[in-house]
């Protein structure tokens, strides 16, 4: 498995500002993803963070609102830009790899609880 450190764990932000969330993994991983979990809802994929190239965004999510970086195989950031109260959610980093024995699994960071006033 992997140890995933996600920072900050929670934040309260003002409308119109931006927040950058960091995801650090203790080993190199093939895939890194960012999910959003709105209050009382399931998880929705925002984008796949690609190392060395632009992220791949899902329908309904755009780079200007959620810029993503992935400078190497162990680190990624998600920025929530020009925030509004509708952006209040839990944001989760997920990593995927082949963890020995040919098994492919996805693991999650502990999430960032974002509240926008």
């Amino acid at each position, binding site marked *: 498995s992997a140890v995933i450190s996600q920072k900050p764990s929670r934040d309260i932000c003002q409308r119109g500002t931006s927040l950058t969330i960091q995801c650090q993994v203790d080993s190199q991983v093939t895939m890194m993803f960012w999910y959003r979990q709105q209050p009382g809802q399931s998880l929705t994929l925002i984008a796949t963070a690609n190392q060395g190239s632009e992220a791949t965004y899902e329908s309904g999510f755009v780079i200007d609102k959620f810029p993503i970086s992935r400078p190497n195989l162990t680190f990624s950031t998600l920025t929530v830009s020009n925030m509004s109260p509708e952006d209040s959610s839990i944001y989760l980093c997920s990593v995927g790899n082949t963890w020995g024995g040919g098994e492919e*699994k996805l693991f*999650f960071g502990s999430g960032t609880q974002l509240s926008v006033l």
Partner: protein
Amino acid sequence: AQTVTQSQPEMSVQEAETVTLSCTYDTSENNYYLFWYKQPPSRQMILVIRQEAYKQQNATENRFSVNFQKAAKSFSLKISDSQLGDTAMYFCAFMKHGVGAGSRLTFGEGTQLTVNP
């Protein structure tokens, strides 16, 4: 596109008893993975159990087991000897075969399980 459906928003069980959570999915893929994740109030998404679609044998992990019916596209989770620490939201998830191919998780709506003393 894949869809995952969990028809039980809430369930409860007495400590030490057995409970089964339901999940159905729809896909045109033949090779894929199915997962159950647990999310306690701490927000951490914890992998409970994983099943490869090409394996007929049902996966088991200690007190957790699945009933995988590929033809029926059903993937239920059985928790035996329920413990208070099992209280959490449980998500069923689907992933196409091959993390390296850019696959990611599609989640169901979740089932809130409460274990009563």
